[in-house]
């Protein structure tokens, strides 16, 4: 009977591959037995079949009983922080993209229709990316968490009162605004790198014509996009963990320092490549009439530009260092005073 096959399929399809064949056979036998009991002779009537299937109940529930556990990508414990992070990321993407659209529209009002289409397409694209990355990050956290519980439960039998976590000192608590602003910053930075790196430059408005002289060579920069992705994923990973843990711990501090160092090194590597910079920056400045050889400050601008990697990378490194020191200090101060 077709409906029996459909029922069995509905159950086994929700079970691990390795058990399907056997459970299918088992259920077939069971349903035949149950039908036999309902009527002694002849082929089973439709209403008997339906009665038997009703007695067995919702195939979903039966499959759940066979599995004996619930499976999920992101469990109930992680779902709240997941949702929070997802909201923040999507909202900041929307704000960043809208901001960019606004800038471009002001910039080239004549091409507003084209920009608008671009805006919609990129917005959807970026939101899908954001959704994907946040989910992957939480998947990793969830997976690790599950592994931990397995290890814990096999190591020690049961729970001890000494396992109870300390009530965190209010000074150790991380304010929600902290990771939120961190995520917004990461997202803005990523969106800028992905969609509007040409806008990063010297802006000039002349007779209603606005032009930008970009700092970077967009084509070369694009080949470095994987680095941007890695840095963004690391940043969101760090902030997600902060949203989950919500207090300063030694481990979290270590993670923060590690992520900062990796991100700084990655950005450093990128900026140290001489071809990433706009090779005709000075010529474009001259052509646009912003400055000309011999004009005031010309030599200074040229020398700053030529030595850009020499001073920019140390500055970025110093900022990262200040951030690391301040985070360490915040943690250390509370740690020693309590």
């Amino acid at each position, binding site marked *: 009977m077709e409906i029996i096959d459909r029922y069995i399929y509905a159950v086994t399809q929700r079970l691990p591959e390795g058990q399907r064949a*056997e*459970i299918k*056979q*088992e*259920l077939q*036998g*069971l349903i*035949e*037995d*149950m039908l036999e*009991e309902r009527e002694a002779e002849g082929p089973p009537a439709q209403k008997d079949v339906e009665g038997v299937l009703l*007695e*067995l*109940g919702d195939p979903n*529930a*039966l499959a759940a*009983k*066979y599995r*004996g556990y619930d499976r999920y990508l992101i469990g109930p414990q992680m779902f709240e922080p997941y949702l929070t992070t997802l909201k923040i990321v999507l909202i900041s993407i929307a704000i960043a993209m809208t901001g960019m659209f606004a800038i471009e529209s002001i910039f080239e009002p004549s091409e507003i229709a084209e920009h608008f289409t671009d805006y919609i397409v990129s917005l959807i694209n970026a939101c899908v990316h954001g959704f994907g990355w946040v989910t992957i990050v939480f998947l990793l956290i969830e997976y690790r968490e599950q592994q931990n519980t397995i290890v814990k439960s096999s190591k020690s039998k049961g729970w001890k009162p000494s396992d109870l976590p300390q009530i965190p000192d209010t000074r150790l608590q991380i304010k929600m605004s902290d990771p939120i602003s961190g995520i917004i910053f990461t997202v803005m930075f990523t969106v800028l790198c992905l969609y509007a790196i040409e806008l990063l430059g010297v802006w000039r408005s002349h007779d209603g014509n606005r032009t930008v002289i970009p700092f970077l060579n967009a084509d070369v920069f694009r080949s470095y996009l994987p680095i941007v992705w890695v840095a963004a994923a690391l940043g969101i990973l760090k902030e997600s963990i902060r949203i989950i843990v919500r207090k300063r711990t030694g481990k979290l501090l270590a993670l923060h320092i590690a992520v900062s160092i990796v991100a700084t090194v990655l950005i450093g590597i990128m900026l140290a490549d001489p071809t990433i910079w706009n090779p005709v920056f000075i010529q474009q400045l001259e052509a646009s009439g912003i400055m000309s050889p011999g004009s005031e400050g010309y030599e200074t601008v040229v020398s700053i530009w030529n030595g850009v990697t020499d001073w920019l990378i140390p500055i970025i490194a110093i900022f990262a260092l200040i951030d690391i020191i301040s985070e360490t200090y915040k943690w250390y101060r509370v740690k020693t005073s309590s």
Partner: protein
Amino acid sequence: MTDVNETINGLLNELRRGTIVIGVLSQLSIPQYGYSLVTVLEEKGIAVDPGTLYPLLRRLEKQELLESKWDTNEARPRKYYLLSPFGQEVYAGLCQEWRKLSISMERIMDESEGGKRDGDH
């Protein structure tokens, strides 16, 4: 107001859930397949629905309380379950615990009924 019978049924189901394991183990000193077990238990006054029993049998097998063998000689291939030596030991232990539990429960119910009997009936 919630229905008394409905509430009792709900709670009773919870109580039964645990006793089914003892019921199943008690019948498997001889090999049986799932549906025959349903019938036997029903005859003895322990109603268990197949949708619960079949997954339970698999679980008990996984816990190594039961052993199983497919019999493909009959018209309908069936999986027969039998108590393993480990299962026999567990069953004996469970029975002992159940008796103790049942004695304690009797005592508790007698005590509370003794105080109320005159008023209620």
